[in-house]
């Protein structure tokens, strides 16, 4: 029943949106998948969106903390975005503070935290980009 969570490559970044309710196996598999993909694509950072999680227990929190440490050892960064207020409060009350993991309110803020902003290319830039594409073809 363990659903695989997709790890999406977007340029130098990896984006993970956890939409299913996490069980231990799923989060462990996700950790492996993230590390494998960083290794394969030399990604600068991985952003994990947990906004749909209504519950994060100490097991999942510990795996996230470990994953952040491993990602950092591989020369990349991990950002956790979208943690619900009730989840945050519960984790803090339990004594889990997720040290060393940068967090942000949503995906956009998370990307900003690691220096990325969504921007539309101007017409000139788009033309240049098309020309560059044509040259490489």
């Amino acid at each position: 029943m363990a659903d695989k969570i997709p790890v999406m490559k977007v340029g130098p970044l990896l984006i993970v949106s956890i939409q299913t309710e996490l069980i231990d196996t799923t989060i462990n598999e996700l950790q492996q998948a993230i590390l494998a993909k960083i290794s394969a694509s030399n990604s600068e950072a991985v952003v994990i969106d947990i906004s749909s999680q209504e519950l994060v227990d100490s097991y999942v929190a510990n795996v996230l903390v470990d994953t952040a440490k491993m990602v950092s050892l591989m020369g990349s960064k991990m950002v956790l975005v979208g943690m619900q207020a009730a989840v945050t409060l519960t984790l803090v009350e339990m004594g889990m503070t997720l040290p060393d993991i940068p967090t942000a309110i949503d995906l956009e803020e998370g990307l900003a935290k690691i220096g990325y902003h969504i921007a539309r290319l101007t017409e000139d830039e788009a033309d240049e980009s098309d020309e560059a594409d044509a040259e490489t073809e």
Partner: protein
Amino acid sequence: MPKVEIRNEENIVLARHEIRNLADELGFSIINKTRLATAVSELSRNTLVHGQGGQMVFQALREEDRVGIQCTFSDEGPGIENVDEAMQEGFSTARSLGQGLPGTRRLVDDFAITSEPGKGTTVEITKWQ
């Protein structure tokens, strides 16, 4: 009383669902529902991992001026040698138990644990809305 057998990881999810549904039915706030469901997740994992499986029974408590939920986790695993020690901050026999019992106790209103080496462990929690 309704009962959830805890024999595998999916059963932990089922236990959380049962409690979240009941909390919704009783009109729990989101934060109290999250606290209780998280406590249930922690304790059912203990039942599975340390108690080698067991069960959770639960019930709604309806008093004149308040409602609550009581859950009892029991296993017939190896038990805990020293319960007082296990309830201390920072005590850990396994990865997830560091915050485990003391952290879980802070999420609920009543927390009672009995354990006998070789016979098993029972934990009863109550959360009032």
